[in-house]
């Protein structure tokens, strides 16, 4: 079964710094929303830049719609919508002029759809982008990305800086977008509460490496945190411990199979675990 996006052992090293992407692999199926989580500098933007070909990878494969992207492949780019963090467009433009430009760039540009989004997001058509608030520029970028009817939507930290009301609106837009089974979204973010709600898959990246990629159901319902005493921890099987952290009075243990853990370790408290906690455990925890 084809995935809309596949990364296989993608690596990229920067000459000037130590940072590199190290064998990054994950797959995004059609019809799904994937949250791409990592702290600042973890490599989210670099990965997305590799996917979009604005930087060149050193090794590995990236397949979009089953094919590699080339600079000349315009048909593929028609089907990819992108929203970057911050100012996507020059501020001397206004939405109407932007639409004019976009219409010349994308064959699939639908001005009517763009206007619908403008109305829905309450964005003035003829005011310069310079006068827009941060939330408005974000919404404009999302409107522009959707108005050329892409199949894959990639957002790089596009919801940070939005107030909760706006984020709610946007999440609704995203869920609408994946009503089509061929549509998928890759959403890099460190606002994990948004992802807890709507993501189908989560991929964690840290220091250029993928530390976990799984379906949200697994993470929410099969992963858990055992909170136990030192003595109990010592008795645990290696296979039940994904990562652990010794605190002052307890040891937190991340496990990937709470059902099994519950039956094995009957007197240990096992909590459901949030994406944030998983991230912290994977990054700061120790492995056996």
């Amino acid at each position: 079964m084809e995935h809309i996006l596949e990364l296989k052992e993608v690596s990229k090293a920067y000459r000037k710094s130590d940072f590199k992407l190290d064998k990054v692999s994950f797959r995004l199926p059609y019809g799904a929303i994937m949250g791409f989580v990592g702290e600042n500098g973890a490599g989210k933007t670099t990965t997305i830049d590799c996917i979009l070909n604005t930087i060149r990878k050193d090794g590995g494969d990236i397949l979009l719609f089953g094919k590699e992207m080339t600079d000349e492949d315009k048909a593929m780019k028609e089907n990819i919508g992108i929203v970057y963090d911050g100012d996507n467009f020059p501020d001397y433009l206004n939405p109407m002029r932007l639409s004019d430009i976009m219409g010349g760039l994308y064959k699939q540009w639908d001005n009517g759809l763009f206007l619908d989004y403008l109305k829905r997001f309450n964005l003035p058509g003829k005011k310069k982008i310079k006068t827009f608030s941060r939330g408005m520029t974000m919404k404009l970028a999302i409107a522009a990305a959707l108005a050329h009817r892409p199949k894959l939507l990639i957002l790089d930290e596009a919801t940070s800086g939005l107030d909760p009301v706006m984020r709610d609106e946007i999440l609704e837009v995203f869920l609408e977008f994946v009503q089509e089974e061929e549509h998928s979204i890759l959403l890099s973010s460190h606002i994990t509460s948004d992802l807890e709600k709507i993501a189908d898959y989560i991929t964690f990246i840290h220091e250029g490496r993928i530390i976990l990629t799984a379906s949200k159901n697994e993470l929410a319902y099969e992963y858990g945190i055992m909170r136990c005493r030192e003595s109990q921890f010592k008795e645990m099987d290696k296979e039940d411990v994904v990562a652990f952290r010794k605190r002052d009075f307890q040891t937190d243990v991340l496990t990937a199979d709470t059902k099994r853990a519950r039956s094995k370790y009957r007197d240990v408290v096992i909590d459901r675990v949030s994406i944030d906690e998983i991230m912290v455990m994977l990054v700061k925890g120790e492995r056996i």
Partner: protein
Amino acid sequence: MEIIISNNANKPIYEQITSQIKEMIMSGELKEGESLPSMRALAKSIRVSVITVQKAYEDLQRDGFIETTVGRGSFVAAANKELYQEEQQRRAEEHLQKAAEIARVSNISLEKLKELLTMFYEEDE
């Protein structure tokens, strides 16, 4: 079809969906052959990820409450008294299990528990 989701409940969201739909089917609110909303449409209305609804529908199918065919969607399966009975039994088991756990931890004897159960059962008679 109204589904209420609680974010704070201990029960996983897909289980909340599953049990509410089962309830509606068993009570007759959802009739045999009636179509359920598509997974994606439901996901959008209750604001959860598609994969959550997918799991709920899979469980409903596994437990025999609905039938899903590719291309046509999901429908309420034929009313099956046995099935409903099984489901109710499963629920009772859940509660009993909880009671047993509490009893074990707080040193309430099995005899006492049986006594209580008999008392509650015969209350309405």
